[in-house]
């Protein structure tokens, strides 16, 4: 089923009806709380600075709103993640938090994707740094040696990290079912 992400809810393109993220998979025979298509949650609208941002800690419902017949449950995540918004039908909302806990696939996937991006940025930064150090004339031999040693270690580790995170990205579909 193709879905379209609006500002506050997920709309089924075929029917135009807002869909519940938790029971939608059940309609497809996958069972409530089942894994959703990879990346679906990461495309949900984020409402930055609208509601109180939860402090670090376990996810919990914070604010409840209504839109298109759906209960919108706002689960507070880590501070930098702002608020994730899930469209839930009333039935699913009762067990919403439990279902959310079962379904970390979206969040896990988005965090692993974020990790992969950061690793790419670190690799680029390390490469740029190495060339800049090579041109720099402000270091003595000892300092230059230490800097090269540190950068060498970091580059080697970073390469390994990129492979590791790349593997998680590739097989996260299987991985997150254990979460």
């Amino acid at each position, binding site marked *: 089923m193709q879905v379209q992400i609006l500002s506050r809810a997920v709309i089924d393109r075929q029917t135009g009806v807002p869909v519940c993220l938790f029971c939608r998979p059940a309609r497809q025979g996958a069972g409530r709380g089942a894994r959703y298509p990879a990346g679906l949650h990461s495309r949900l609208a984020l409402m930055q600075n609208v509601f109180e941002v939860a402090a670090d800690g376990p996810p919990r419902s914070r604010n409840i709103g209504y839109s298109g017949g759906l209960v919108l449950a706002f689960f507070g995540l*880590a501070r*930098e993640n702002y608020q994730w918004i899930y469209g839930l039908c009333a039935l699913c909302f009762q067990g919403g938090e439990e279902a959310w806990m079962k379904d*970390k696939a979206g*969040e*896990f996937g988005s*965090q*692993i994707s*974020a*990790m992969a991006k*950061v*690793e790419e*940025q*670190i690799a680029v*930064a*390390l490469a*740029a*740094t190495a060339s*800049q*150090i090579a041109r*720099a*004339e*402000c*270091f003595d031999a000892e*300092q230059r040696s*230490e*800097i090269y040693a*540190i*950068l060498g*270690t*970091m580059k080697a*580790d*970073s390469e390994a*990290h990129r492979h*590791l*995170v790349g593997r*998680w990205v590739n097989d996260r579909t299987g*991985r997150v079912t*254990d*979460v």
Partner: protein
Amino acid sequence: MFEQASLAEVFGALLAKEQQAAKLCADLEAKAADPAFRQEIGQLRREKQRHVELTQRLLEIVQ
């Protein structure tokens, strides 16, 4: 002087990225239920923390 300032800026940006990666690792580790995955992410988190320290050392050198 300009060279050092420029490098300090580069290392500062690198430090921010390493800290971001370490935080992501810590978040993932806290949420992971799969022991094998938790072990992998834990190792990565420790290495990222080490990178943070190494990058801080780079900053010390240029400053």
